[in-house]
């Protein structure tokens, strides 16, 4: 067997027995991600339910009238505490005794009946979540009441409600090849895949070269007939496989999380309705090849250059920014973007994944992206090989 593959199989066997790698690549992706999203979904649901049930205390200053509005408030889940002075009401708000202060116009009833606008001023605490929730509830209530009063005003003049809406827009989504859930998936999945592929392989990559230097096993390996190129390629192949596995497990974990009912509470009701055809899956895997080769080569460079694993971790911190930034950018970048994005490593791969998921694949973008990714990966691999062949770097532990 070629010595590159001898090294590769040995390293792979060791990696598969490393609990840290198994946890970060498989367990965390398949178990923790769905669990985390399920937990967040439950929290969102709980918060929504408790927000619906909770009775909100508000201070009310109503110099005259406004009884109909006040009755609606009390019937709409608010506890009304009448006060006369604004300072007193603001003090109650600051002490969090009430969630908001409602100030009714002095001519509230007159304005309402004269077909003018009766103002309701709401004071709230911007740093308090429940105060902001109270404002939302008050707005919803006022909008509902307002709509009722408009109807009454129109009815008095024998005018239908259509009068207030000369033109109405009706939207109808056409039947698409991919379900709507794929749109939400296309925002989250590229980000998760490109990050997981990189960070999932950090531990084995650093263990394979820097760790071997640190433990003192590299000298005996270099004394075998295997050339340095064969050794580094064997190690590089192992890291590439781990990168790829990390990406695939992250994808499976994310799909599992999206399939859970709780995902609809975090994103939208449509989140759980997604599909991934076999050709799309194949396209995703093809996209991952140059990306994981690039990641693996970069991690091998750091691992070779560093004297030990601790030093490698130090170099990782600034490099992580270069991976995280394009990953985050992919979440906010439109699928149909300029061709220049194809020249940005990492982001270009994330964009292809996005295009595949939404079914809006631009062939020129894909071709340029893959060419750029392959070129960058080849350069990184060449640097890693050259570095590994330098004797001073290898024996610098």
């Amino acid at each position, binding site marked *: *067997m070629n*010595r590159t593959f*001898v*090294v590769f199989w*040995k390293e792979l*066997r*060791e990696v598969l*027995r*490393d609990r840290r790698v198994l946890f970060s690549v498989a367990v965390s992706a398949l178990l923790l991600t769905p669990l985390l999203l399920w937990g967040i979904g439950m929290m969102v649901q709980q918060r929504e339910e408790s927000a619906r049930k909770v009775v909100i205390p508000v201070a009310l200053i109503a110099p005259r009238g406004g009884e109909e509005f006040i009755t609606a408030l009390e019937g709409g889940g608010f506890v009304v505490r009448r006060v006369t002075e604004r300072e007193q009401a603001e003090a109650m708000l600051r002490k969090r005794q009430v969630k908001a202060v409602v100030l009714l116009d002095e001519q509230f009833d007159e304005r309402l009946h004269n077909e003018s606008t009766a103002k309701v001023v709401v004071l709230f605490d911007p740093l308090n979540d429940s105060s902001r929730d109270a404002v939302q509830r008050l707005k919803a209530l006022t909008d509902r009441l307002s709509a009722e009063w408009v109807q009454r005003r129109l009815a008095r003049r024998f005018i239908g409600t259509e009068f207030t809406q000369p033109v109405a827009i009706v939207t109808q989504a056409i039947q698409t090849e991919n379900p709507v859930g794929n749109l939400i998936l296309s925002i989250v999945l590229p980000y998760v895949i490109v990050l997981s592929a990189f960070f999932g392989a950090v531990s084995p990559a650093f263990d394979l070269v820097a760790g071997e230097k640190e*433990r*003192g*096993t590299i*000298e*005996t*390996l*270099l*004394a*075998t*007939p*295997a*050339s340095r190129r064969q050794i580094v390629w064997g190690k590089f192949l192992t890291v590439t496989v781990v990168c790829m596995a990390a990406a695939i497990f992250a994808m499976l974990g994310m799909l599992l999380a999206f399939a859970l009912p709780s995902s609809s509470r975090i994103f939208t009701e449509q989140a759980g309705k997604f599909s991934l055809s076999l050709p799309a899956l194949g396209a995703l895997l093809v996209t991952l090849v140059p990306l994981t080769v690039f990641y693996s080569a970069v991690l091998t460079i750091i691992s070779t250059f560093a004297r030990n694993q601790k030093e490698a971790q130090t170099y990782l911190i600034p490099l992580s920014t270069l991976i995280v930034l394009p990953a985050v950018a992919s979440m906010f970048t439109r699928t149909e973007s300029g061709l220049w994005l194809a020249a940005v490593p990492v982001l270009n791969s994330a964009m292809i994944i996005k295009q595949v998921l939404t079914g809006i694949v631009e062939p020129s973008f894909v071709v340029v992206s893959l060419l750029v990714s392959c070129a960058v990966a080849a350069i990184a691999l060449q640097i890693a090989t050259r570095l590994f062949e330098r*004797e*001073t770097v290898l*024996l610098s532990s």
Partner: protein
Amino acid sequence: MVTASGLSKVFTDRKRGAVVALDEVSFEARPGEVFGILGVNGAGKTTLLRVLGTILAPSAGDATVAGYNIRTQPQEVRQHIGYLTGSTALYGRLTAREILTYFGSLYGLSGKMLRRRVDELVETLQMSEFIDGRCDRLSTGQRQRVSIARSIIHNPPVMFMDEPTAGLDVVTSRTIMQFIEDSRRRGHTVLFSTHIMSEAERLCDRIAVIHRGRIVAIGTLEELRARTGERALELVFLSLIGEKEGEE
């Protein structure tokens, strides 16, 4: 057989500039001979073995190992040497058998031949108790036996041993010493670097005293004694490197 002729190695250090680790080293070690390389820490022993083992490239000079040139035939050189250091570090997540199989494959062995060779070494080095146990659970002595087996899996005619007993207890050191004596009996050339006088005295047929990268003397123990007029190897050594009382 190992021959070195004017072998030099210069490292470039950012702070210290050019550092001469080996300075025109020449010697010849014959089959069936334990050739000692005696020197203090930092004298150049490890660098010499690394250059001869083609782990490092020489800056000047030349050498042949088992008839192969270290500059032009590095892979053949590595194919014909066994390399053992004092480090007992192994791949902790592999079993002893897997390590032997791994190194055997790197030396080009495969199939039945490899399995037979592993079984042979298991018997010779009495490793049957722990051969299928993970290396991170082995004692230092057991790990050193695995290291020895790993270094001779391909039955090399030349052995490079770089302070193989460093940090080992008496019992484990004894295993190494017996192994070196066995290698000599089998007609192998053994290059044995050490700074422990008693080991050199007991094992080496000839000794090269190395100091600051230069070989200052080569000979049998008796020849070195006659040259310095000292009896104890420690005094012989100090005399040769010019560190004896009153000398610079």
